[in-house]
């Protein structure tokens, strides 16, 4: 086993990885940028190396400096977390070349799966369902019409060189095809200088369902069941859960098998996530493989009891996966809410700044993966994720009640969060019914505005601070004893 691991990341995920390393008796090296000298991940590690400026290119994306820090501290392996260099095949290769173990899949697997067309081909060849569509886009209108019959309706006309919705048409009936092809092609030509289009099955009201897999170097591959991640805002997941309300036990096993098949087809080693689109009929299609630890991995950990980071480290160290598929028996229901620094009263705009007051909820079945602390200034330069609130309970209904109550007890001031929004989402009828599709937010919360808490109580709380905060030096002193803060001395902090 490694004696020391460098964590090439920051924030909550770096802190979370450090925790598992400590449990395993492995030394931890944090790296940090100028903006992060007081960051939680830096303080939690056994050692910390300053690797450069605040800009990611000068620090967390700077492969050479990170490798340098690993060499300097004698770290035998690097855990990349998610984001930054986590899915960078060149970095994985550089680690290998430097004699440092990259905790993730082999570089070739990362680059294969990072290329969507290569990944699609690998999966199709491996018998994993992909979204039906023309793999050859250089066909004439006649050929496309034939393909359309094979794919079926509704289908999507897409510009080969397109993006941003330009040159894209949803075709619901056969007789609309010719017109759509013509208009899409002409729009594509105008926009990208290339009118080539191709066809793909259009998935209506899809769900985003992904499957966690673990694979060792010896060909043992298992899955840890699914995560339902359909609730997204601006293509960013905000609520995840497991099990998915959309899956029958049969479909669950089928998708699990498909994920294992996908991992095997790709020659996958370490922890990874196979993402699928699931349509309303119960058909599912390969979307992509995330070749790293996923933000939402805790929900899987809570229902299976398996520490995925520990497995990653063990696999990277060459250990054999001692788990068989039959050993993995998920229990109960888990939900995660991502706590981003964002201002729900201001269109969810990023909300960096200094955390003036912070008290996350705790209690049975509550996990809080967190990268910040009271007094920390959340930098403007990095991802807005501050923490993840995760709950586990006997069943989905109790998990919802637990999450709702936990969100009600989430105290953060100084930096905005979407906690009130998340609570409304969790507590909504469609969520309670499990009607979680990727259009959930647009459909059910298009114009959400935060409700103001009881103004009277807010005013009275303000007055309470003014009144009882002021006396800390005077009345408070009479009960003060050396070394022991009276409450009102403590209160004095935030009223200075």
């Amino acid at each position: 086993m490694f004696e020391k691991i460098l964590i090439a990341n920051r924030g909550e995920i770096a802190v979370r990885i450090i925790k598992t390393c400590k449990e395993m008796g492995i030394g931890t090296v944090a790296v940090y940028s100028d903006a992060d000298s007081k960051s939680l991940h830096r303080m939690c590690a056994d050692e910390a190396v300053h690797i450069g400026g605040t800009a990611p290119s000068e620090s967390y994306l700077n492969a050479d400096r990170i490798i340098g820090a690993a060499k300097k501290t004698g770290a035998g392996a690097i855990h990349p977390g998610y984001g930054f260099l986590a899915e960078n095949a060149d970095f994985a290769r550089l680690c290998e070349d430097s004699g440092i173990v990259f905790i993730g899949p082999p570089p070739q697997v990362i680059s294969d799966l990072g290329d969507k067309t290569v990944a699609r081909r690998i999966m199709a060849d491996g018998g994993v369902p992909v979204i039906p569509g023309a793999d050859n886009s250089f066909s004439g209108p006649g050929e496309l019409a034939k393909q359309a019959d094979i794919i079926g309706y509704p289908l999507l006309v897409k510009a080969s060189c397109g993006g941003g919705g330009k040159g894209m048409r949803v075709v619901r009936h056969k007789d609309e095809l010719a017109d759509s092809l013509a208009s899409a092609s002409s729009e594509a030509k105008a926009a990208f200088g290339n009118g080539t289009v191709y066809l793909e099955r259009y998935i209506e009201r899809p769900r985003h369902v992904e499957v966690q897999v673990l694979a060792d170097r010896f060909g043992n591959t298992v899955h840890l069941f699914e995560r339902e991640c359909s609730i997204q805002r601006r293509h960013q997941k905000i609520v995840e859960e497991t099990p998915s309300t959309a899956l029958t036990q049969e479909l669950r096993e089928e998708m699990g098998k498909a994920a294992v098949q996908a991992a095997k087809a790709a020659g996958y080693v370490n922890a990874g996530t196979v993402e699928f689109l699931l349509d309303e009929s119960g058909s599912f299609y390969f979307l992509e493989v995330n070749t790293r630890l996923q933000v939402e991995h805790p929900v899987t950990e809570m229902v299976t009891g398996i520490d995925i980071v520990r497995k990653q480290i063990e696999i990277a160290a060459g250990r054999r996966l001692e788990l068989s598929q039959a050993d993995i028996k998920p229990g109960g229901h888990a939900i995660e809410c991502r706590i981003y620094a964002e201002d729900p009263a201001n269109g969810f705009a990023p909300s960096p700044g200094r955390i003036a007051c912070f008290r996350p909820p705790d209690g049975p079945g509550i996990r809080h993966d967190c990268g910040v602390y009271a007094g920390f200034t959340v930098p403007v330069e990095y991802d807005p994720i501050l923490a993840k609130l995760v709950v586990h309970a006997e069943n989905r209904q109790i998990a919802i009640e637990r999450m709702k109550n936990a969100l009600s007890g989430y105290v953060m001031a100084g930096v905005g969060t979407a906690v009130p929004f998340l609570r409304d989402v969790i507590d909504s009828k469609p969520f309670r019914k499990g009607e979680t599709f990727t259009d959930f937010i647009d459909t059910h919360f298009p114009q959400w505005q935060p409700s103001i808490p009881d103004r009277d109580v807010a005013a009275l709380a303000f007055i309470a601070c003014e009144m009882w905060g002021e006396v800390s030096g005077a009345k408070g002193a009479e009960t003060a004893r050396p070394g022991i803060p009276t409450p009102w001395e403590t209160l004095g902090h935030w009223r200075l």
Partner: protein
Amino acid sequence: MEYNLNVEGETVAVSVQEEDRDRFSARIGDREYSVEKIGLMDGLLILSVNGKQTGIGIGDPDGGRDVVINGCPCFVNDDSMQPRGRGGRRPAGKASNMVTPPMPAVVVRVMVNEGDTVSEGQPVAVVSAMKMETTLYAPFGGRVVSINAAEGDKVSPGDILVDIEKVGE
């Protein structure tokens, strides 16, 4: 004592009577309240309001307080008191007549130069916060008098990045 507080943009007038060291009574409109200080626990202020206990988180940004009740923060300041910080933190409405970022941000680029003539709604600068870019537009047509920010600068709400002089009014 009388307070005129601004709670998330609305005025709340409170009449307060101190009862004893740990207790005051208050009237807001025709509603009567009895407020008791229970204590401070893990950074929360515990109050009893008419016998109902609540844990309240309190942050203290410039010029007021963030009061967090049941997970929802709400901004309270006292208009009648001297501002203790740099003035109100939150703009009363959208500061739509200035080229200023809506949140602390870093300048990605400035697309105009001093002396340029700009039309209303023309993009003049892009700022970035937490990997999300926001474009700032000219609030009205006019002439660019000065550029006050350069690429890479850290800027805050209220900082005028581009000064525009109205033309033809």
